[in-house]
């Protein structure tokens, strides 16, 4: 199984921070987005303090990979979470996409090379979230 990150929605962590603030602050999401986009420390602190309860704030994004995998490996992934989206491009090659919530839940509950590859690619699109998960991983 081989995973190649090919794209993701930009400003992913800033949008995540905006979602967190939108629910609890009496300002508009456009203003909040503009504010957090100029305040990377605030973004980091919001993500580090995030309590992953129902996790919906993690859903405002999409990450895309090319996945080299057998039919069985692809089916196993779908059986782990119905929120992965797969399109077969040709035998053994898939277009895979998911949002951050799906990835975080997979990383927290699974072991193995797919989990490590998903966590590894997170450094590109959600580095703060990746470091939080790495710390939890080390703490066991």
């Amino acid at each position, binding site marked *: 199984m081989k995973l190649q990150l090919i*794209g*993701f*929605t*930009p400003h992913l962590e800033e949008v995540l921070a*905006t979602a967190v603030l939108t629910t609890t602050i*009496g300002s*508009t*999401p456009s203003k909040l987005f503009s504010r957090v986009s100029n305040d990377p420390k605030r973004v980091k602190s919001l993500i580090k303090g995030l309590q992953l309860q129902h996790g919906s704030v993690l*859903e405002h994004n999409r990450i895309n990979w090319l996945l080299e995998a057998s039919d069985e490996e692809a089916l196993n992934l779908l059986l782990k979470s119905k929120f992965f989206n797969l399109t077969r491009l040709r035998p053994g090659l898939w277009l895979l996409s998911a949002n951050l919530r799906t990835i975080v839940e997979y990383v927290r509950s699974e072991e193995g090379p797919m989990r490590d590859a998903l966590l590894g690619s997170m450094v590109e699109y959600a580095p703060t979230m990746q470091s939080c998960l790495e710390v939890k991983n080390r703490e066991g």
Partner: protein
Amino acid sequence: MKVELLSASPIAQLVKALRARSIEVPLDMLLPHVSFTFAVQDISRACSHQLVRHRVASYSQQSQRFVEVKALEKHVVVPSTISNSEKAYVTFWGLLKETQRAYEDLVGFSVPMEDARFVLPNATETHLLVTMDGQELFHFFGLRCCNRAQWEIRLLADSMLREVLRVAPELFRKAGPYCYQRGRCEEGRFSCGRIKEVKAKYDKMKEEA
């Protein structure tokens, strides 16, 4: 109402990555793999109730449990059918002032905001983030750009369509109400009967994008 596209999947980048593997795919195939996140501001709670019925989407909405509604009279959506009628206008604002007083009293009596909000009207403004994938957006536009849709959510759907046309005009070339997408109306005896007018409206929107 204000609608702003905050983030969108990089479609050209995805197509390029596929081509690097000698894979040509129709753009439609990418629809379930791309997402669009909108900041939606100053819509009524009546409108957001309709929006969240589209379940293949993600929402983060301002909470009335944690955010106090201050100066309600400045934060309501008033339909033109009410503002254009003197009698309706007087009735609407009479109730609104009573509601505002009751809400402020309840909060003053230390009733938690999560309970004081029970008196707030559907006209109360709200803000939210909404994320939909391309496939769900086509369905949302199909239903909510339709002349049969309620005016506020139709305005919202048109605004969201304008935003995605700005960044992905080719992907959303066929987007619009179902009569525009399919060339026929699916509303049966409830059809507005103005399919040509609708087609002209959405063709013009695409030209302007």
